[in-house]
């Protein structure tokens, strides 16, 4: 680890918080339907959308109505993407005449993008046309991100006041988030990325003749605009197979810092949005503190693991000064590779600028563990905030058990119904991750996909279902993912991780919204101080993390110790 490396890391983290604060307050305003500086331009488009859709944006929806609207829109969107991928050959903007996807790969890919996972069982530049990347994948990145943010807004509103019957209007939330938040940042961000070297063209490739006279076909495409929403919406699906490690997605240190900043911008901003919606900014700061503790600890562990290099290679005569460079790009070095990969796995982005499969065991485990915590520190856009709130409810419940009082969070009494629903949501994660991973490790059709042997093979499979269920989308990419077994089971894990978690959470919101707000008394457990921050961190580690320790012991931890003993597989 070097001082200049930490300086790079701290600079990016500081710039994130600095920008997230005003953006968070801005999100609270547009969520309320207030006018912003963009209304003179985009206001007519917003009203046009409502008119065509037959929507009254002022009419609130009860939680069931909100959930039905959310699921219906996402179902239609899933079907549309499935059709687009299957019919790619017949659709325009496909100059290389690429064939449509197989049914199982189209199912997996459509599920992946609808759930904001962006798991890449396909190879971007070799299987998808510029058209499919644009109206297929890019548009889904906007809509799935907006879906998550809308749900987070709905749940935040449940804490705002007492006796509410509704959580807001889903159609208006979606429209406003896309028009006033995601699209403007994406437009500006795309220009920045192009200026830094990211292509944005309808050409699919350029044919070069190298200095040694060989042919080199260089894949191109409308990359920049997809790249920016891929980060901003914590989506993570790259235009190219190598994702953000590809020089065209991420040409230099500037672009990787900018992309890392984009990934965290909205998840961090939403903690400020939450503080504004519940009319107590300190509540948002407490959540931010919890996020900060996990993120900084994770960066420190992963940085230490990678910076020392691979002892097995050092023994052969490789200089460890550069760190573990297998699967890393020289222009990022260790600090920016580690920062980027921690940020994209702490959020549910899943973009990678270095290959996690080749990380040192503890470096790769850090990313895996961050996802297993439930993608909540800070997690994906929106989904991270509502996930963190579920853990906050469990934390006050635990605190209530210790002192024998009915727990409250933000003046709302947390009772059996909410705690049961919270546990239902939280238990989906280990069920899908451990269940599917265990099954896949005994099914020969699945183990044939493993790219590495020994404990690392177990890590590969565990990571795949961790990533899918957490809706992250990154991978230990040595795993051959496009097989009937994995396309199907990973598709189901993504579905469960997104919607089986979201529906109980919306039900909690509906139940809490109706409750009266109890004024704070001397017996109220304050949820903005260091005691609560510490308690919430503890609950996240114990409830979210500890159940994965046996599996992690067999995978990355076992690999770490065998590596120290000099054993290879």
């Amino acid at each position, binding site marked *: 680890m070097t001082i200049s490396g930490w300086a790079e890391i701290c600079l990016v983290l500081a710039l994130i918080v600095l920008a997230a604060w005003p953006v968070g307050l801005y999100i609270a305003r547009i969520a309320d339907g207030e006018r912003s500086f963009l209304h003179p331009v985009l206001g007519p488009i917003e009203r046009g959308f409502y008119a065509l859709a037959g929507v009254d944006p002022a009419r609130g929806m009860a939680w069931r109505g909100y959930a039905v609207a959310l699921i219906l829109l996402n179902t239609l969107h899933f079907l549309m993407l499935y059709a687009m991928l299957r019919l790619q050959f017949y659709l325009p903007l496909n100059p290389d005449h690429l064939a449509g996807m197989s049914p199982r790969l189209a199912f997996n890919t459509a599920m992946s993008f609808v759930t904001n996972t962006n798991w890449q069982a396909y190879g971007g530049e070799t299987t998808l046309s510029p058209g499919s990347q644009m109206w297929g994948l890019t548009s889904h990145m906007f809509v799935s991100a907006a879906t998550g943010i809308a749900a987070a807004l709905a749940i935040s509103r449940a804490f705002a006041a007492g006796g509410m019957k509704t959580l807001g209007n889903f159609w208006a939330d979606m429209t406003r988030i896309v028009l006033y938040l995601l699209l403007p940042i994406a437009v500006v961000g795309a220009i920045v990325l192009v200026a830094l070297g990211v292509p944005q063209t309808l050409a699919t490739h350029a044919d070069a003749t190298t200095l040694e006279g060989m042919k080199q076909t260089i894949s191109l495409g409308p990359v920049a605009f997809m790249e920016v929403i891929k980060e901003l919406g914590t989506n993570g699906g790259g235009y190219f197979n190598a994702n953000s*490690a590809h020089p065209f997605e991420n040409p230099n240190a500037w672009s990787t810092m900018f992309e890392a900043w984009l990934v965290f911008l909205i998840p961090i901003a939403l903690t400020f949005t939450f503080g504004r919606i519940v009319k107590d900014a300190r509540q948002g700061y407490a959540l931010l503190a919890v996020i900060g503790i996990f993120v900084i600890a994770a960066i420190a562990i992963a940085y230490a693991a990678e910076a020392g290099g691979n002892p097995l290679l050092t023994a052969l005569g490789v200089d460890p000064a550069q760190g573990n460079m297998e699967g890393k790009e020289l222009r990022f070095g260790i600090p920016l590779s580690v920062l980027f990969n921690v940020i994209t796995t702490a959020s549910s982005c899943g973009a990678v600028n270095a290959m996690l499969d080749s990380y040192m065991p503890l470096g790769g485990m850090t990313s895996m563990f961050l996802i297993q915590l439930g993608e909540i520190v800070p997690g994906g856009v929106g989904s991270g905030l509502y996930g963190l709130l579920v853990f906050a409810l469990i934390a006050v419940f635990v605190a209530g058990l210790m002192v024998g009082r009915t727990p409250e969070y933000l003046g709302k009494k947390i009772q059996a119904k909410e705690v049961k629903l919270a546990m239902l949501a939280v238990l989906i994660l280990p069920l899908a991750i451990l269940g599917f991973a265990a099954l896949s490790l005994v099914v020969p059709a699945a183990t044939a996909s493993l790219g590495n042997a020994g404990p690392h093979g177990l890590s590969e499979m565990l990571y795949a279902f961790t990533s899918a269920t957490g809706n992250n989308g990154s991978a230990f990419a040595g795993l051959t993912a496009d097989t009937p077994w994995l396309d199907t089971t990973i598709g189901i894990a993504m579905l469960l991780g997104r919607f089986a978690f979201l529906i109980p959470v919306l039900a909690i919101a509906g139940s809490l919204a109706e409750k009266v707000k109890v004024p704070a008394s001397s017996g109220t457990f304050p949820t903005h101080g260091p005691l609560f921050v510490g308690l919430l961190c503890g609950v996240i580690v114990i409830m979210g993390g500890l159940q994965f320790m046996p599996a992690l012991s067999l995978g990355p931890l076992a690999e770490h110790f065998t590596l120290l003993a000099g054993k290879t597989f």
Partner: protein
Amino acid sequence: MANAFRPAFVLVVLLTLLTGLVAPLAMTGLAGLAFPFEAGGSLIEDHGRIIGSALIGQNFTGAGYFHPRPSATTEPDPKDASKTVPVPYAADNSNASNLAPTAKALIDRVKGDLASAGPAPVPADAVTTSASGLDPDISPENARRQIARVASARHWPEDRVAAIVAAHTEAPFLGFLGETRVNVLALNHALDRMQAP
């Protein structure tokens, strides 16, 4: 449910048109006007012929050129499409080795590359594959160790080659943002241009 169908359907269509068609096409046009070189892939031309992209590495094997990092990219086997063959720096199929730090295949590959890499300690980037397989850069130390070979193949004094390497070494901005690196294609292109004025 039924009354939610119209807004769901209409919004899916409108949002797809806006974010999947209008916006990306508008941005393509705008980017092409504002930054034509970058938007087109930073392609380098020499006498009207594209020799590569400033951002994408390419393979060099000749003794008179600086060599890039090893690359794990592949192409489909011309004899059997279900298999792949190694093709370093295949810029239409970015890929990494994805080998675990404990993989025997990794250790064996590095052992093989070390045999021709000169005295230990060897800079890590000289024997490890990058994440994209298209890394355009090498470390200054890696370049320094190749100067003697390049100079002797070109019958140039070593100082002359070393000066070109130094001119193509990019230092971190403000001393800490980014890594010190040498773009291999730019370096080799500079060597060629010096030879043929």
